[in-house]
């Protein structure tokens, strides 16, 4: 029984990314440790309220200055009015150096220089930031790793023009501007998460009947095309 453990450890070393970039998530458990520091000012979860800092529910995909009732800095409000929304890259940059990222922010936290620590805490945030009562499933923060997808499928590069056409079907329900009102935003999702989530519906691992139907008739290339379109839409 020692051998598998040894192999697993070796695999972990071999597979460990040499550096963790903004587009990757770290370890949720380590992130939970780090969260204790954030918790001095921030709350998260079904009954989370604004404290010194805003609550962090739905933070992925949430507009800047998007926590209702929180008194934001002028700088943050202005960013919100420009239509900016929080995604993985933006959050990573913000917590690296809050005041460097957004001059005039009220957040006095000095920032996290270690990219692995940021990845860990973002992973934890992502798992905890949605309120399940409001977003029944397929939340914008849904964990992409809930379904295994053939790496070959993940490596398909989507045709953005086809994606633009196919996405028009999604936009009957999912608002292009990323606003959520009973139906989650799909704008600006990381492509890989999008692809994995769609395959989870296609394979009926995820429950939602409309999404199972919609994903069920898209082939691998079509899913990649839609994923690339919505990722790009979030950057417009």
């Amino acid at each position: 029984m020692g051998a598998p453990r040894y192999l697993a450890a070796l695999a972990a070393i071999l597979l460990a990314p040499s550096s963790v970039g903004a587009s990757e998530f770290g370890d949720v458990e380590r992130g939970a440790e780090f969260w204790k520091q954030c918790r001095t000012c921030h709350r998260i979860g079904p009954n989370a309220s604004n404290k010194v800092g805003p609550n962090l529910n739905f933070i992925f995909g949430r507009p800047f200055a998007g926590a209702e009732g929180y008194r934001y800095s002028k700088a943050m409000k202005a960013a919100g009015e420009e239509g900016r929304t929080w995604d993985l890259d933006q959050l990573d940059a913000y917590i690296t150096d809050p005041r460097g990222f957004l001059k005039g922010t009220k957040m006095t936290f000095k920032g996290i220089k270690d990219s692995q620590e940021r990845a860990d805490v973002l992973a934890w945030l992502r798992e905890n930031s949605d309120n399940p009562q409001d977003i029944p499933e397929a939340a914008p923060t849904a964990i992409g790793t809930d379904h295994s997808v053939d790496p070959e499928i993940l490596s398909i590069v989507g045709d953005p023009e086809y994606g633009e056409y196919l996405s028009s079907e999604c936009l009957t329900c999912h608002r292009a501007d990323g606003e959520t009102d009973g139906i989650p935003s799909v704008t600006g999702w990381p492509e890989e998460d999008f692809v994995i989530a769609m395959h989870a519906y296609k394979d009926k691992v995820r429950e939602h009947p409309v999404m199972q139907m919609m994903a069920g008739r898209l082939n691998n290339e079509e899913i990649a095309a839609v994923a690339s379109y919505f990722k790009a839409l979030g950057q417009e």
Partner: protein
Amino acid sequence: MKLNRRLFLGSSAALTASLAAPTVWGDNHGKPKVVVIGGGAGGATVARYLAKDSKGGIDVTLVEPTRTYYTCFFSNLYIAGFRDLASIGHSYGTLAGEYGINVIHELATGIDRDAKEVTLSGGAKLPYDRLVLSPGIDFVDGAVPGWDVSAQNAMPHAYKGGSQTELLKKQIEAMPEGGLFCMIAPPNPFRCPPGPYERISMIAHKLSEVNPTAKILIADPKEKFSKQALFEEGWDAHYGGMVERLGPDFGGGNVTVNPAEMTVDIDGDVNTVDVCNVIPAQKAGKICEMAGVTEGNWAPVVPATMQSRIDENIHVLGDATNQGDMPKSGFAANSQAKVAAMAIRGALTGSKVFPAKFTNTCWSLISTENGVKVGATYEATEEKIAKVDGFISQTGEDAELRKTTFEESVGWYSGITADMFG
């Protein structure tokens, strides 16, 4: 302004002027022209997608007589008091201002297919390279003996959004204690198959709050109706004893109304009613008939492009079409509009064309936060828009799932109206 400029160019004097000063009109010169008639789920969507995706490469004109569009979808929720009227009204300001669509609030009164020209109620003529007709429905004359549109104040149809919906709501609220509401339901095919039954649910909801001894009677020419098991389960659970439906076996298809006397004769049995909602048999919006693109009551279309089977320069969308398996719904019209926009752009600007995919989902509200849905996906075959896959809510679902479904419908409303009006 654009209309004026085009009219100006239409005269020979203008031609001289334009040669002298070509920059005045240079921005529109040579662009393909698409005229869209009808600014609902089909028309507004196709106009917006054409303008958006061609990035100004197509000159898009939208002809819609009303300045504020009240959606039929969610109008039943307004009747129940779950929405206010303003929340289901939409203007065309964004389509004109942000998408550069030439929005004209007039009625299209004629179509010259040879000259490829639309005449407006104001007398102006609009030339087109492609014409899109998305006029919704009109009513079949004489469908309900005793009723015509001149009686629509006494017995509203409320099957086109806006003032009729408002009127019906007021009449229901003014019903005497223990009064009788009657609905004359339409035969197939008609706009929004679950619509009449969602309306019954919403009226029952309203009445059980303000007038609990009132009764609801439905005269229905159809054996079966959309989401029947779900509605009937809900009526029993929430409005026990209030709703009675007479199907064709009980003479539900043999109805005469008398709007002056406020009576309804169902198979020889005369009922005095307090409110009567007459939803007559339907046909394509009249402009389709005027354009000569109908066969029978509806306009047949080529599924892959939504082109009229009678004139390839005309596309028809939504309720007015005879297309195959899709229901007549706002969702379906919106879906068809995107296929048409892609096909039109392909034909006029050479952009890529992909295989048509269609979708529909219809949510209905049965009681407070008790939503159900039915939906399907479709593809284009030679012969028709053919169903691929579908689903429907189940009876006996728990309250939490129904609430989620209702919340989803609210999200959909927000999504589709943003998709239509920008």
